[in-house]
């Protein structure tokens, strides 16, 4: 019976077997997950942020748990572009799901350098532009909060991205996320992903110091989910719906019900982040759960569900 349900998704020109990705920075380079799930059964996989040069990352503690969430300040720890291409790409090429590489940099030139090298790689379906990382001193989030810089970095990367899908990942803590979303789309983004983490702090009251060595970190997990759902819905209504630009929704997804909320809000696909730390195989359960939901709600194609939030009933009364 479930065979009759089509949960495959057309995402900025790519055919995804289902709408579930694993999120950047929470699923390594894919081989780390393979003891727990068949990564190819995902709709898509996103690598951690790759920078031109290898980065050691921040001092520890890099994480701290909070109620229903966690703060991280990893600091783009990654093996760098050359090692990524040499050591990781071959395994990623074998995956039958769509592979996105998340790219980051401190300057526009660094973003462009990474994008240019990856544009020719067959293993990769798309690039996710991280302009919203709260844990790196230079660049990072400042790119994501200033519309002019968003325009500049997006169009610069678009020029060198070739036929790769360009997805821009938005920071949630901006005055109006739709303004940034609009600028990204106008500058060439084929898709948007939201949300990245919220800058946050936890203080040790005995020492009166922040717990994280970096002082602040990005809040992720179930705690941010309602805000993420709201922001996805806002960008969907105000920017992407009329243009047919897909949204990859994320922030606190642990279950199929969580994922479905995002889809109803307007996301064409969703990504699972922090939840993989607790149950590294949970994305597969989420895919199954989405299918079951469609069956029991007589939805034959998941497209019907995207942005299907009921219109306001008592608006403007």
């Amino acid at each position, binding site marked *: 019976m479930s065979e009759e349900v089509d949960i495959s998704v057309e995402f900025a020109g790519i055919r995804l077997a289902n709408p579930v990705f694993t999120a950047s*920075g*929470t*699923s*390594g380079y894919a081989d*780390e*997950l393979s*003891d*727990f799930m068949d990564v190819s059964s995902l709709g898509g996989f996103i690598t*951690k942020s790759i920078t031109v040069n290898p980065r*050691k*990352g921040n*001092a*520890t*503690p*890099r*994480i*701290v*748990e909070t*109620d*229903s*969430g*966690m703060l*991280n300040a*990893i600091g783009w*720890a990654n093996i760098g572009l050359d090692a990524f291409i040499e050591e990781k790409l071959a395994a990623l090429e074998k995956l039958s799901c769509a592979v996105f590489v998340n790219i980051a940099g401190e300057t526009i030139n660094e973003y462009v350098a990474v994008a240019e090298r990856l544009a020719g790689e067959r293993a990769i379906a798309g690039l996710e532009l991280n302009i919203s990382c709260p844990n790196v001193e230079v660049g990072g989030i400042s790119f994501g909060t200033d519309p002019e810089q968003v325009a500049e970095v997006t169009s610069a990367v678009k020029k060198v991205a070739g036929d790769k899908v360009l997805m821009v990942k938005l920071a949630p803590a901006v005055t109006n996320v739709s303004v940034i979303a609009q600028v990204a789309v106008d500058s060439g983004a084929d898709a948007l992903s939201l949300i990245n983490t919220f800058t946050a702090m936890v203080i040790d009251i005995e020492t009166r110091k922040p717990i994280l060595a970096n002082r602040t970190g990005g809040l992720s*997990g*179930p705690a941010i989910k309602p805000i993420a759902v709201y922001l996805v819905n806002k960008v969907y209504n105000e920017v992407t719906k009329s243009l047919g630009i897909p949204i990859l929704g994320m922030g606190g997804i642990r279950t199929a019900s969580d994922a479905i909320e995002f889809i109803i809000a307007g996301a064409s696909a969703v990504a699972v982040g*922090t939840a*993989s*730390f*607790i*149950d*590294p*195989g949970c994305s597969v359960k989420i895919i199954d759960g989405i299918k079951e939901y469609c069956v029991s709600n007589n939805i034959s194609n998941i497209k019907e569900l995207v942005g299907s939030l009921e219109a306001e009933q008592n608006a403007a009364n």
Partner: protein
Amino acid sequence: MLEKSSAVKRGVFSATVCSNKQIRERFYRLVLEFSGAGAEAFAKIGAGQFAQLDLSDTALPPVETIPDDLADVAERKILLRRPFSFADVTTKGNKTSVDILYCVVGPATLRMTTLSARESVSVLGPLGNGFWVPDGKKTALLVSGGMGTGPLQHLAKILTADFPDINVIAFAGARSAEALPFERQLDEISQQLGFSLPEFAKYGVESLVATDDGSAGFAGPVTDCISEWLGSSKSAGKSMVIYSCGPEAMLARVAEIAREKNIDCQVSMERRMACGISLCQSCAVECKTAGSNDTFYKLCCEDGPVFDSAEVVF
């Protein structure tokens, strides 16, 4: 040579609680049993390997029994799993049981105290690399601080069973007699150096106790105790290996002593871990290679938690 234990296929397994016994005010010994694939996965784990337990659904103890200093943190919801290593691993038929020695320090370990027989717990593992035995060793010193004794008890069992030529001696330190995580009351045992903790004696391993306040055994930090012991030992050097687990400041001092005496030394490191399986990069341990000032990070969960002390930047 006992190779660095690279994990068999790891996974998320359900374990059944056999017992959960309080052994001191804040110390407990939890025994979990695996069957099926879990039993297979955990049957051959090395000392120092660990697992991630999901305690988010475990009940809190009754409010009136919660220690005052944990009353606030008890309110905190748990999201992430928590890492624990093992004090013993035994197999019987197609079941494997593992012992976890734990100390109540926060919301997860507080909840852990309410686990009772037949309850099930989700365990992600086995994870990381344990202690290994380099060639040519004649003497092994097991040096622990506080809860660090757990994996060293498991190591004592493995060494005495598989390496009969190695002489094993355990050193266990804590702030005070009360803070020593052993089952028997220490006043039943000689206050002199050279007495045997039953946890090690059962493997035929001699043990020395050190307490900072002198309330049992050697008066002073366990690191002074091994220093003194090494000073009077003729065998200190290449044929010896030190295995250590405990607070980082203690590990740093043990590493320094080992370097001075030219003794191989392995330390079990702790870091805050979100995943335990190299997804999150949270558990970085700063390392260096000999002869270079450049440092780099290794992952405690994947490259460790046991490291050669010479490569760790303390």
